[in-house]
């Protein structure tokens, strides 16, 4: 299993310089997690400004490598919306992925950053395995791309020492230590003042810290793992020990097929309308060949929503026009930072197999300034 000590170990210890650079975060998630992070290779499909925020957080945290895939040309809007693109490339014929490399490299020269040309449809299971990715992040991608990438990640399993190109034992000492390992799939996007983050970690095993409650006089010192929790940071420290847990995740297809139960109207009304909007926007993409909805599509979206609500016997007022239009502008900088921060931290938890990633669909509602997680699918 991924949790045996021989699996996914970084080949070497971290250097003194890394220990100092990463000191503040090692205190948070521990040295083992930092080593796993340091061995992780991540592929990001799509390099819009949201990718800049996620990539900044991942690169600063010290992953092994980050590969960006986005052949769309760099635009003035991109440069104005994010620090990650090199402004001196404004008039060069360059792609968004390439324009982000120098800033990412300077944030942390120890991380290998590169751009990969091509379209998501060209990715194959062999390629993902050969290039040794631990995670694939689909950023601001149309729903069909999410479906196919989600399926693709689930079709890849790293198994022992055999390369799928028949190369036999790997001379690369990293790969030879890898056993059954899966490619983790993430999807994220911002729409207007809202955003979502989706995780499919298949069967995910991880370590988490359990507090040791100091025994009171005369009482049994055993602790019920379901109720003990780690105390808030900053309060009096307690001894903790690591325990291993696992969680099962649904694939993107089944999440897309989510049907909300009209009999539970009370709880449906408590969900953020931004969640319904996210799904409505997926529907729009399906009906419009992957095109992104914009401010001019309000009427089409209203019609689509009415049909959607009717087909599920839901009241149409779960999503009103005001909220709908709030999701159609290009996202503002703070929304990108919030969704990017949440997404990056879940990726860090997932690839380091430390702490609980959420399961499985996070929505940030920029009107209520609130985030919530639903388990869908």
């Amino acid at each position, binding site marked *: 299993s991924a949790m045996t000590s021989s699996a996914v170990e970084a080949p070497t210890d971290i250097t003194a*310089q890394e220990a*100092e*650079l*990463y*000191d*503040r*975060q090692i*205190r*948070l998630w521990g040295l083992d997690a930092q080593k796993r992070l340091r061995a992780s290779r991540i592929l990001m499909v799509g390099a819009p400004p949201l990718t800049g925020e996620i990539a*900044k*957080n991942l690169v*600063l*945290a*010290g992953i092994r490598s980050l590969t960006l895939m986005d052949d769309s040309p760099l*635009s*003035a*809007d991109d*440069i*104005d919306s*994010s*620090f990650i693109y090199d402004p001196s490339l*404004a*008039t060069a014929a360059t792609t968004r992925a390439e324009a982000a490399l120098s800033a990412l490299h300077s*944030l942390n020269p120890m991380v290998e950053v590169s751009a990969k040309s091509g379209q998501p449809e060209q990715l194959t299971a062999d390629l993902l395995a050969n290039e040794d990715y631990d995670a694939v992040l689909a950023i601001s991608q149309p729903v069909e791309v999410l479906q196919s990438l989600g399926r693709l990640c689930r079709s890849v399993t790293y198994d022992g020492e055999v390369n799928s190109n028949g190369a036999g034992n790997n001379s690369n000492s990293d790969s030879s230590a890898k056993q059954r390992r899966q490619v983790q799939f993430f999807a994220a996007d911002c729409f207007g003042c809202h955003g979502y983050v989706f995780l499919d970690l298949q069967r995910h095993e991880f370590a988490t810290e359990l507090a040791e409650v*100091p025994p009171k006089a005369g009482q049994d010192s055993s602790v019920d793992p379901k109720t003990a929790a780690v105390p*808030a*940071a*900053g*309060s*009096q*420290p*307690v*001894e903790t020990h690591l325990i291993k847990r696992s969680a099962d995740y649904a694939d993107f297809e089944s999440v897309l097929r989510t049907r909300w139960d009209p009999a539970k109207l009370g709880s449906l009304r408590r969900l953020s309308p931004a969640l319904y909007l996210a799904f409505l926007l997926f529907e729009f993409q399906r009906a419009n060949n992957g095109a992104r909805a914009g401010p001019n599509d309000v009427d089409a979206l209203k019609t689509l929503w009415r049909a959607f609500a009717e087909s599920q016997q839901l009241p149409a007022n779960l999503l009103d026009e*005001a909220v709908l*239009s709030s999701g159609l*502008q290009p996202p*503002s*900088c*703070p*929304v*990108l*930072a*919030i969704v*990017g*921060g949440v997404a*990056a*931290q*879940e990726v*860090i938890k997932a690839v380091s197999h430390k*702490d*609980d990633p*959420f*399961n499985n669909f996070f929505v940030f509602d*920029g*009107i209520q*300034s*609130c*985030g*919530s*997680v639903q388990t869908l699918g």
Partner: protein
Amino acid sequence: SSPGTDNRWRHVRRLLERAGPLGGPEFEPDPELFSAIRSDLVQILVVGAGGLGCEMLKDLALSGFVNLHLIDMDTIDLSNLNRQFLFRPKDIGRPKAVVAAEFVERRVSGCRVTPHFGKLEDKPLEFYKQFMCIVCGLDSVQASVIPLIDGGTQGFQGHCRVVRAHATPCLECTADLYSSTQQGFPLCTLAHTPRLPEHCIEFARIMQWPQEWPFGEEVPVDGDDPHHVDWIRTEACKRARQFGIREPDFRLTQGVVKHIIPAVASTNAVISAQCVTEVFKAITGCYPLLNNFANFSDIEGVAVNVVPLERNPQCDVCGQPPPKPLTFNSRDSLQTVINQLKSEHGMTRPSLTACVEGRDVTLYMDLSFLRDQLADNLDKSLAELGLLSNTVLNVTDSAQSGMKPVTFVLNLEDGMET
């Protein structure tokens, strides 16, 4: 100058130039509002240029604000670079405020960032009065009439809160929410009944060091000196063995001695962005502010929620004597009220807010920036403005710097009560 400059802020402009059902109660869309927020009248102070400060500065600059000040007393350290992304290894040793300002000015054309390398406390009160809003990652600024946005993070947790005098709790009201970052263990625990490695470390630092002076008489503990930390660790380990406690390693020892708080980029990104969103709303009025304390945690899954904290009526800092009554007729105009405030209560340029149906409403503001927008209110009667008996009015005087707001309660001879 930046490509696409004419169009570059159109997304921000859209928020300010269009009405909509989500706008704030007094928001009037105005094509001039965008240039107004970039005029010299709008100065914003960012307190702290560390993990939160770097993120906030980035978000403010990319949201269209151009007059930013930044204050921080620290210089850059290698351990900052895992999250303070405006700094590079070559900047180590330089003041954070200076380097952050340079980076943002270079990257966002038109944005002016004035760095202040020094302590908050060393600035005179006049310094703070030039700002329309203050946003900070520290909790040491006193409440004022100026809206204060405060953010804080520790590891995977964080908060963003809005503080407005007399409307929300001040920082002192809710001081007990902030758990102490100084790990103050009771001395008896350290001396007689230690249970944790931290107890052993603190015992060595607080009690053994001043008895043995291992590096010379009266030479204090220097958390950055690895020899000092090693000495403390050795003593702590001896004590730990004695009491059957896990022996601390160097990292834990140094962390306790230096009171290090764990930190990571993503939490800072989220909290800073929430704070800057509130700054944008406070300055432009385009949407009601967060009411009033948002919690964030991604230890287990992700949790974000907002709670409306209440003021502590006994608070030393923001508590006030009972409000003075103002007696009028409901048909009297707001101008009449203002005239009385001038003639009988010693005010020169009063500005008033009131709590109407649970929300704060600005009745009139005697500041050049807003005077014209609210001029219509002056001729309206108190009844038209929705003011009833027992409505509380908060009044400040723009001409009296440093004056605390005065609370009045409205007494309408003919009017209905709230």
